[in-house]
Protein backbone atom coordinates (compact mmCIF):
# COMPACT_ATOMS: atom_id res chain seq x y z
CA UNK A 1 0.00 0.00 0.00
CA UNK A 2 2.84 2.36 0.83
CA UNK A 3 4.41 1.68 -2.51
CA UNK A 4 1.09 2.48 -4.16
CA UNK A 5 0.88 5.87 -2.48
CA UNK A 6 4.54 6.57 -3.22
CA UNK A 7 3.95 5.92 -6.92
CA UNK A 8 0.92 8.17 -6.89
CA UNK A 9 2.86 10.95 -5.19
CA UNK A 10 5.72 10.48 -7.59
CA UNK A 11 3.53 11.45 -10.53
CA UNK A 12 1.96 14.36 -8.70
CA UNK A 13 5.12 15.98 -7.42
CA UNK A 14 8.58 14.44 -7.71
CA UNK A 15 8.29 13.39 -11.32
CA UNK A 16 5.49 15.66 -12.41
CA UNK A 17 5.19 14.92 -16.14
CA UNK A 18 5.11 18.56 -17.19
CA UNK A 19 7.41 20.28 -14.74
CA UNK A 20 10.00 17.54 -14.22
CA UNK A 21 9.89 15.08 -17.09
CA UNK A 22 8.97 17.74 -19.67
CA UNK A 23 6.66 15.43 -21.58
CA UNK A 24 3.23 16.21 -22.96
CA UNK A 25 4.03 19.88 -23.35
CA UNK A 26 2.38 20.63 -26.69
CA UNK A 27 -1.17 20.10 -25.50
CA UNK A 28 -0.53 21.95 -22.25
CA UNK A 29 0.67 25.15 -23.85
CA UNK A 30 -1.98 25.13 -26.56
CA UNK A 31 -5.03 24.24 -24.49
CA UNK A 32 -4.32 26.23 -21.32
CA UNK A 33 -6.06 29.38 -22.53
CA UNK A 34 -9.35 28.36 -20.90
CA UNK A 35 -9.92 26.66 -17.57
CA UNK A 36 -12.92 24.72 -18.82
CA UNK A 37 -11.30 23.15 -21.86
CA UNK A 38 -8.11 22.49 -19.86
CA UNK A 39 -10.11 20.63 -17.27
CA UNK A 40 -11.72 18.37 -19.87
CA UNK A 41 -8.36 17.90 -21.57
CA UNK A 42 -6.94 16.79 -18.22
CA UNK A 43 -9.84 14.37 -17.72
CA UNK A 44 -9.32 12.95 -21.21
CA UNK A 45 -5.62 12.40 -20.51
CA UNK A 46 -6.34 10.77 -17.14
CA UNK A 47 -8.83 8.41 -18.76
CA UNK A 48 -6.48 7.38 -21.57
CA UNK A 49 -3.52 7.02 -19.19
CA UNK A 50 -5.47 4.92 -16.70
CA UNK A 51 -7.10 2.67 -19.27
CA UNK A 52 -3.93 2.32 -21.32
CA UNK A 53 -1.77 1.54 -18.29
CA UNK A 54 -4.35 -0.97 -17.04
CA UNK A 55 -4.53 -2.88 -20.33
CA UNK A 56 -0.81 -2.75 -21.10
CA UNK A 57 0.18 -3.77 -17.62
CA UNK A 58 -2.28 -6.69 -17.53
CA UNK A 59 -0.99 -8.01 -20.85
CA UNK A 60 2.67 -7.28 -20.21
CA UNK A 61 3.55 -10.97 -20.04
CA UNK A 62 1.90 -11.68 -23.39
CA UNK A 63 3.08 -8.75 -25.54
CA UNK A 64 6.25 -9.74 -27.44
CA UNK A 65 9.13 -7.38 -26.82
CA UNK A 66 9.83 -6.61 -30.50
CA UNK A 67 6.35 -5.35 -31.35
CA UNK A 68 5.51 -3.70 -28.05
CA UNK A 69 5.46 -0.13 -29.40
CA UNK A 70 2.87 -0.83 -32.16
CA UNK A 71 0.80 -2.72 -29.60
CA UNK A 72 0.93 0.23 -27.19
CA UNK A 73 -0.06 2.58 -29.98
CA UNK A 74 -3.06 0.49 -30.98
CA UNK A 75 -4.26 0.17 -27.38
CA UNK A 76 -3.85 3.90 -26.80
CA UNK A 77 -5.46 4.80 -30.13
CA UNK A 78 -8.56 2.79 -29.24
CA UNK A 79 -9.04 4.64 -25.97
CA UNK A 80 -8.40 7.98 -27.66
CA UNK A 81 -11.13 7.10 -30.16
CA UNK A 82 -13.48 6.44 -27.23
CA UNK A 83 -12.72 9.90 -25.83
CA UNK A 84 -12.94 11.50 -29.27
CA UNK A 85 -16.41 10.16 -30.04
CA UNK A 86 -17.76 10.61 -26.50
CA UNK A 87 -16.66 14.22 -26.34
CA UNK A 88 -17.99 14.95 -29.80
CA UNK A 89 -21.39 13.57 -28.80
CA UNK A 90 -21.83 14.97 -25.30
CA UNK A 91 -19.61 18.05 -25.09
CA UNK A 92 -19.71 19.57 -28.58
CA UNK A 93 -18.79 23.07 -27.34
CA UNK A 94 -15.65 21.82 -25.59
CA UNK A 95 -14.81 19.61 -28.55
CA UNK A 96 -14.97 22.62 -30.86
CA UNK A 97 -12.32 24.34 -28.74
CA UNK A 98 -10.07 21.32 -28.28
CA UNK A 99 -10.42 20.11 -31.88
CA UNK A 100 -7.26 18.46 -33.13
CA UNK A 101 -5.88 18.12 -29.58
CA UNK A 102 -8.14 15.20 -28.75
CA UNK A 103 -6.87 12.92 -31.56
CA UNK A 104 -3.39 14.23 -30.78
CA UNK A 105 -3.53 12.56 -27.35
CA UNK A 106 -2.53 9.41 -29.23
CA UNK A 107 0.90 10.84 -30.02
CA UNK A 108 1.25 12.58 -26.67
CA UNK A 109 4.64 11.53 -25.30
CA UNK A 110 3.18 11.39 -21.81
CA UNK A 111 0.89 8.44 -22.55
CA UNK A 112 3.32 6.38 -24.62
CA UNK A 113 6.16 7.30 -22.28
CA UNK A 114 4.36 5.94 -19.22
CA UNK A 115 3.28 2.81 -21.10
CA UNK A 116 6.88 2.08 -22.03
CA UNK A 117 8.62 3.27 -18.87
CA UNK A 118 6.15 2.09 -16.26
CA UNK A 119 3.13 0.00 -17.22
CA UNK A 120 5.12 -2.49 -19.30
CA UNK A 121 7.42 -3.28 -16.35
CA UNK A 122 5.17 -3.08 -13.32
CA UNK A 123 2.14 -4.91 -11.86
CA UNK A 124 -1.39 -3.72 -12.53
CA UNK A 125 -1.99 -2.03 -9.16
CA UNK A 126 1.10 0.10 -9.36
CA UNK A 127 0.43 0.96 -13.00
CA UNK A 128 -2.99 2.30 -12.03
CA UNK A 129 -1.37 4.42 -9.33
CA UNK A 130 1.16 5.70 -11.84
CA UNK A 131 -1.53 6.55 -14.39
CA UNK A 132 -3.62 8.32 -11.77
CA UNK A 133 -0.65 10.21 -10.34
CA UNK A 134 0.75 11.27 -13.69
CA UNK A 135 -2.74 12.18 -14.96
CA UNK A 136 -3.57 14.24 -11.90
CA UNK A 137 -0.15 15.89 -12.07
CA UNK A 138 -0.94 16.84 -15.65
CA UNK A 139 -4.44 18.07 -14.76
CA UNK A 140 -3.25 20.23 -11.88
CA UNK A 141 -0.52 21.95 -13.89
CA UNK A 142 -2.65 22.52 -16.98
CA UNK A 143 -5.63 23.87 -15.01
CA UNK A 144 -3.33 26.05 -12.89
CA UNK A 145 -1.71 27.46 -15.98
CA UNK A 146 -5.10 28.07 -17.60
CA UNK A 147 -6.42 29.69 -14.42
CA UNK A 148 -3.59 32.21 -14.47
CA UNK A 149 -3.75 32.83 -18.21
CA UNK A 150 -7.52 33.15 -18.47
CA UNK A 151 -8.03 35.21 -15.31
CA UNK A 152 -5.26 37.71 -15.97
CA UNK A 153 -5.39 37.59 -19.76
CA UNK A 154 -9.12 38.21 -20.18
CA UNK A 155 -10.08 39.61 -16.78
CA UNK A 156 -12.58 36.88 -15.94
CA UNK A 157 -13.00 33.13 -15.63
CA UNK A 158 -15.75 31.50 -17.65
CA UNK A 159 -17.44 28.12 -17.21
CA UNK A 160 -19.83 26.95 -19.96
CA UNK A 161 -19.82 30.47 -21.37
CA UNK A 162 -20.86 32.20 -18.12
CA UNK A 163 -18.24 34.34 -16.33
CA UNK A 164 -17.77 32.94 -12.83
CA UNK A 165 -15.04 35.14 -11.38
CA UNK A 166 -14.27 38.63 -12.66
CA UNK A 167 -11.50 41.04 -11.89
CA UNK A 168 -12.61 44.62 -11.05
CA UNK A 169 -13.81 46.84 -13.91
CA UNK A 170 -11.08 48.70 -15.70
CA UNK A 171 -8.46 45.97 -15.31
CA UNK A 172 -6.28 46.37 -18.41
CA UNK A 173 -6.27 42.72 -19.55
CA UNK A 174 -3.04 41.97 -21.40
CA UNK A 175 -4.27 39.83 -24.28
CA UNK A 176 -0.73 38.58 -24.78
CA UNK A 177 -1.32 36.06 -21.98
CA UNK A 178 -4.04 34.23 -23.88
CA UNK A 179 -2.28 34.57 -27.22
CA UNK A 180 0.35 32.00 -28.09
CA UNK A 181 3.46 33.82 -26.73
CA UNK A 182 1.72 33.85 -23.35
CA UNK A 183 1.85 30.06 -23.26
CA UNK A 184 5.62 29.98 -23.59
CA UNK A 185 6.20 32.92 -21.25
CA UNK A 186 3.89 31.72 -18.48
CA UNK A 187 5.32 28.22 -18.61
CA UNK A 188 8.87 29.59 -18.56
CA UNK A 189 8.18 31.58 -15.42
CA UNK A 190 6.38 28.66 -13.80
CA UNK A 191 9.40 26.51 -14.49
CA UNK A 192 11.69 29.15 -12.99
CA UNK A 193 9.48 29.13 -9.90
CA UNK A 194 9.93 25.34 -9.63
CA UNK A 195 13.70 25.79 -9.96
CA UNK A 196 13.65 28.42 -7.22
CA UNK A 197 11.75 25.97 -5.00
CA UNK A 198 14.40 23.33 -5.65
CA UNK A 199 17.24 25.69 -4.81
CA UNK A 200 15.47 26.77 -1.62
CA UNK A 201 14.97 23.11 -0.59
CA UNK A 202 18.62 22.32 -1.18
CA UNK A 203 19.71 25.28 0.90
CA UNK A 204 17.42 24.23 3.73
CA UNK A 205 18.82 20.71 3.58
CA UNK A 206 22.39 22.00 3.77
CA UNK A 207 21.50 24.23 6.69
CA UNK A 208 19.88 21.27 8.46
CA UNK A 209 23.06 19.22 8.22
Amino acid at each position, binding site marked *: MNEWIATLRNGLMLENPLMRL*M*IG*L*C*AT*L*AVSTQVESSFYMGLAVIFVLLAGNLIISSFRGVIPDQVRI*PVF*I*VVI*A*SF*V*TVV*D*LTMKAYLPAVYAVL*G*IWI*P*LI*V*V*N*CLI*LGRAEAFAYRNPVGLSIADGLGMGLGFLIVIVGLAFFRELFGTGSLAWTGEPVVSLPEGYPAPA*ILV*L*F*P*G*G*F*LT*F*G*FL*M*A*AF*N*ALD*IWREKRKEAGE
Partner: protein
Amino acid sequence: MNTGVYLALLFVGAALVNNILLTRFIGLCPFFGVSNDFQTSVGMSLAVAFVMTMATAATWFFWNFVLVPLGVGEFLYIPAFILVIASLVQFMEMFLRRYVPGLYRSMGIYLPLITTNCAVFATATEAVKPGFFKMNLPYAFGFGEAIVYALGVSAGFALALLTFSALRERLELAPVPRVFKGNAIAFITAGLLSLGYVGMAGWFGL
Protein backbone atom coordinates in the same frame (compact mmCIF):
# COMPACT_ATOMS: atom_id res chain seq x y z
CA MET B 1 -8.54 33.48 -57.37
CA ASN B 2 -6.44 31.39 -59.67
CA THR B 3 -5.01 28.13 -58.47
CA GLY B 4 -1.36 29.20 -58.39
CA VAL B 5 -2.05 32.19 -56.14
CA TYR B 6 -4.30 30.11 -53.92
CA LEU B 7 -1.62 27.44 -53.47
CA ALA B 8 1.06 30.08 -52.78
CA LEU B 9 -1.17 31.66 -50.11
CA LEU B 10 -1.85 28.26 -48.62
CA PHE B 11 1.90 27.65 -48.41
CA VAL B 12 2.64 30.99 -46.73
CA GLY B 13 -0.35 30.61 -44.46
CA ALA B 14 0.80 27.18 -43.30
CA ALA B 15 4.44 28.24 -42.93
CA LEU B 16 4.20 31.67 -41.34
CA VAL B 17 0.71 32.74 -40.31
CA ASN B 18 -0.12 29.44 -38.63
CA ASN B 19 3.44 28.39 -37.85
CA ILE B 20 3.09 24.93 -36.38
CA LEU B 21 5.68 25.31 -33.62
CA LEU B 22 5.43 28.87 -32.47
CA THR B 23 1.77 29.69 -32.91
CA ARG B 24 0.13 26.30 -32.56
CA PHE B 25 2.46 24.47 -30.16
CA ILE B 26 2.34 21.25 -32.16
CA GLY B 27 5.58 19.23 -32.18
CA LEU B 28 7.28 20.93 -29.27
CA CYS B 29 9.26 17.86 -28.16
CA PRO B 30 11.90 18.16 -30.90
CA PHE B 31 11.67 21.92 -30.62
CA PHE B 32 13.08 21.80 -27.10
CA GLY B 33 14.77 18.44 -27.38
CA VAL B 34 17.14 18.89 -30.33
CA SER B 35 17.42 22.66 -30.55
CA ASN B 36 20.58 22.63 -28.41
CA ASP B 37 22.60 21.95 -31.50
CA PHE B 38 22.24 23.66 -34.87
CA GLN B 39 23.54 20.71 -36.92
CA THR B 40 21.06 18.34 -35.31
CA SER B 41 18.25 20.79 -35.98
CA VAL B 42 19.08 20.80 -39.68
CA GLY B 43 18.85 17.00 -39.81
CA MET B 44 15.64 17.00 -37.82
CA SER B 45 14.00 19.63 -40.06
CA LEU B 46 14.93 17.67 -43.15
CA ALA B 47 13.58 14.44 -41.73
CA VAL B 48 10.33 16.06 -40.58
CA ALA B 49 9.76 17.71 -43.98
CA PHE B 50 10.34 14.39 -45.71
CA VAL B 51 8.15 12.32 -43.42
CA MET B 52 5.40 14.94 -43.17
CA THR B 53 4.94 15.19 -46.92
CA MET B 54 5.07 11.43 -47.45
CA ALA B 55 2.75 10.80 -44.53
CA THR B 56 0.20 13.32 -45.77
CA ALA B 57 0.24 11.71 -49.20
CA ALA B 58 -0.11 8.21 -47.74
CA THR B 59 -2.94 9.10 -45.35
CA TRP B 60 -4.71 11.02 -48.11
CA PHE B 61 -4.87 7.90 -50.24
CA PHE B 62 -5.76 5.74 -47.27
CA TRP B 63 -8.59 8.05 -46.21
CA ASN B 64 -10.07 8.61 -49.65
CA PHE B 65 -9.71 5.11 -51.07
CA VAL B 66 -9.99 2.86 -48.02
CA LEU B 67 -11.64 4.49 -45.01
CA VAL B 68 -14.30 6.57 -46.76
CA PRO B 69 -15.51 3.86 -49.19
CA LEU B 70 -15.77 1.43 -46.27
CA GLY B 71 -17.62 4.03 -44.19
CA VAL B 72 -15.40 3.58 -41.14
CA GLY B 73 -13.44 6.83 -41.27
CA GLU B 74 -15.14 8.55 -38.37
CA PHE B 75 -14.12 6.02 -35.73
CA LEU B 76 -11.08 4.33 -37.22
CA TYR B 77 -9.10 7.31 -38.40
CA ILE B 78 -6.90 7.62 -35.29
CA PRO B 79 -5.50 4.07 -35.23
CA ALA B 80 -5.49 3.88 -39.03
CA PHE B 81 -3.48 7.08 -39.54
CA ILE B 82 -0.98 6.34 -36.81
CA LEU B 83 -0.37 2.85 -38.17
CA VAL B 84 -0.02 4.13 -41.74
CA ILE B 85 2.49 6.72 -40.58
CA ALA B 86 4.42 4.27 -38.40
CA SER B 87 4.76 1.67 -41.12
CA LEU B 88 5.66 4.34 -43.67
CA VAL B 89 8.49 5.58 -41.44
CA GLN B 90 9.71 2.04 -40.87
CA PHE B 91 9.67 1.35 -44.58
CA MET B 92 11.42 4.60 -45.44
CA GLU B 93 14.13 3.93 -42.90
CA MET B 94 14.91 0.56 -44.49
CA PHE B 95 14.69 1.98 -48.00
CA LEU B 96 17.01 4.89 -47.28
CA ARG B 97 19.54 2.74 -45.47
CA ARG B 98 19.73 0.39 -48.44
CA TYR B 99 19.53 2.77 -51.41
CA VAL B 100 20.34 6.35 -50.33
CA PRO B 101 22.95 5.94 -47.58
CA GLY B 102 24.03 9.60 -47.81
CA LEU B 103 20.56 10.85 -46.92
CA TYR B 104 20.22 8.13 -44.31
CA ARG B 105 23.36 9.31 -42.55
CA SER B 106 22.12 12.89 -42.34
CA MET B 107 18.62 12.19 -41.06
CA GLY B 108 18.28 8.45 -40.42
CA ILE B 109 18.58 8.56 -36.66
CA TYR B 110 15.71 11.02 -36.40
CA LEU B 111 13.27 8.90 -38.38
CA PRO B 112 12.14 6.57 -35.57
CA LEU B 113 11.66 9.58 -33.27
CA ILE B 114 9.33 11.16 -35.79
CA THR B 115 6.84 8.28 -35.77
CA THR B 116 5.23 9.61 -32.62
CA ASN B 117 5.85 13.25 -33.40
CA CYS B 118 2.59 15.11 -33.05
CA ALA B 119 3.46 17.48 -35.89
CA VAL B 120 3.34 14.72 -38.51
CA PHE B 121 0.13 13.19 -37.21
CA ALA B 122 -1.54 16.59 -36.80
CA THR B 123 -0.63 17.79 -40.28
CA ALA B 124 -1.75 14.60 -41.94
CA THR B 125 -5.03 14.56 -40.00
CA GLU B 126 -5.81 18.19 -40.69
CA ALA B 127 -5.00 17.96 -44.36
CA VAL B 128 -6.93 14.75 -44.90
CA LYS B 129 -9.91 14.55 -42.56
CA PRO B 130 -12.59 17.24 -42.97
CA GLY B 131 -13.50 19.27 -39.92
CA PHE B 132 -10.11 19.79 -38.31
CA PHE B 133 -8.39 22.36 -40.42
CA LYS B 134 -7.94 25.64 -38.59
CA MET B 135 -9.05 27.72 -41.54
CA ASN B 136 -12.41 25.99 -41.14
CA LEU B 137 -12.90 24.89 -44.68
CA PRO B 138 -16.03 22.81 -45.06
CA TYR B 139 -14.25 20.35 -47.33
CA ALA B 140 -11.11 18.27 -47.08
CA PHE B 141 -8.11 19.08 -49.19
CA GLY B 142 -7.58 17.72 -52.66
CA PHE B 143 -4.33 15.84 -53.16
CA GLY B 144 -2.40 18.83 -54.52
CA GLU B 145 -3.56 21.14 -51.75
CA ALA B 146 -2.73 18.57 -49.09
CA ILE B 147 0.83 18.24 -50.38
CA VAL B 148 1.32 22.02 -50.59
CA TYR B 149 -0.07 22.34 -47.08
CA ALA B 150 2.34 19.70 -45.75
CA LEU B 151 5.26 21.39 -47.50
CA GLY B 152 4.25 24.74 -46.05
CA VAL B 153 3.96 23.33 -42.55
CA SER B 154 7.37 21.69 -42.78
CA ALA B 155 8.92 24.90 -44.10
CA GLY B 156 7.48 26.70 -41.07
CA PHE B 157 8.76 23.94 -38.80
CA ALA B 158 12.26 24.24 -40.23
CA LEU B 159 12.25 28.03 -40.03
CA ALA B 160 11.19 28.09 -36.38
CA LEU B 161 13.49 25.23 -35.32
CA LEU B 162 16.56 26.69 -37.04
CA THR B 163 16.10 30.25 -35.73
CA PHE B 164 15.47 28.88 -32.27
CA SER B 165 18.49 26.60 -32.21
CA ALA B 166 20.73 29.42 -33.47
CA LEU B 167 19.41 31.56 -30.62
CA ARG B 168 19.94 28.80 -28.13
CA GLU B 169 23.55 28.27 -29.10
CA ARG B 170 24.24 31.87 -28.16
CA LEU B 171 22.15 31.49 -25.00
CA GLU B 172 24.65 28.89 -23.77
CA LEU B 173 27.21 31.65 -23.31
CA ALA B 174 24.85 34.29 -21.93
CA PRO B 175 24.76 35.08 -18.21
CA VAL B 176 21.36 33.78 -17.08
CA PRO B 177 19.94 34.07 -13.54
CA ARG B 178 20.30 30.79 -11.68
CA VAL B 179 16.59 29.99 -11.45
CA PHE B 180 16.10 30.52 -15.19
CA LYS B 181 18.96 28.19 -16.21
CA GLY B 182 18.17 25.44 -18.68
CA ASN B 183 14.66 25.02 -19.96
CA ALA B 184 13.04 27.99 -18.24
CA ILE B 185 15.02 30.52 -20.27
CA ALA B 186 14.44 28.44 -23.40
CA PHE B 187 10.69 28.84 -22.91
CA ILE B 188 10.99 32.58 -22.39
CA THR B 189 13.12 32.83 -25.54
CA ALA B 190 10.56 30.84 -27.49
CA GLY B 191 7.86 33.16 -26.15
CA LEU B 192 9.69 36.22 -27.41
CA LEU B 193 10.33 34.54 -30.74
CA SER B 194 6.66 33.67 -31.11
CA LEU B 195 5.80 37.28 -30.30
CA GLY B 196 7.11 38.04 -33.78
CA TYR B 197 4.52 35.71 -35.24
CA VAL B 198 1.65 37.57 -33.56
CA GLY B 199 2.31 40.31 -36.09
CA MET B 200 1.31 37.96 -38.85
CA ALA B 201 -1.90 36.72 -37.25
CA GLY B 202 -4.85 37.25 -39.54
CA TRP B 203 -2.92 37.75 -42.76
CA PHE B 204 -4.90 36.73 -45.84
CA GLY B 205 -7.88 36.18 -43.55
CA LEU B 206 -6.40 32.87 -42.45
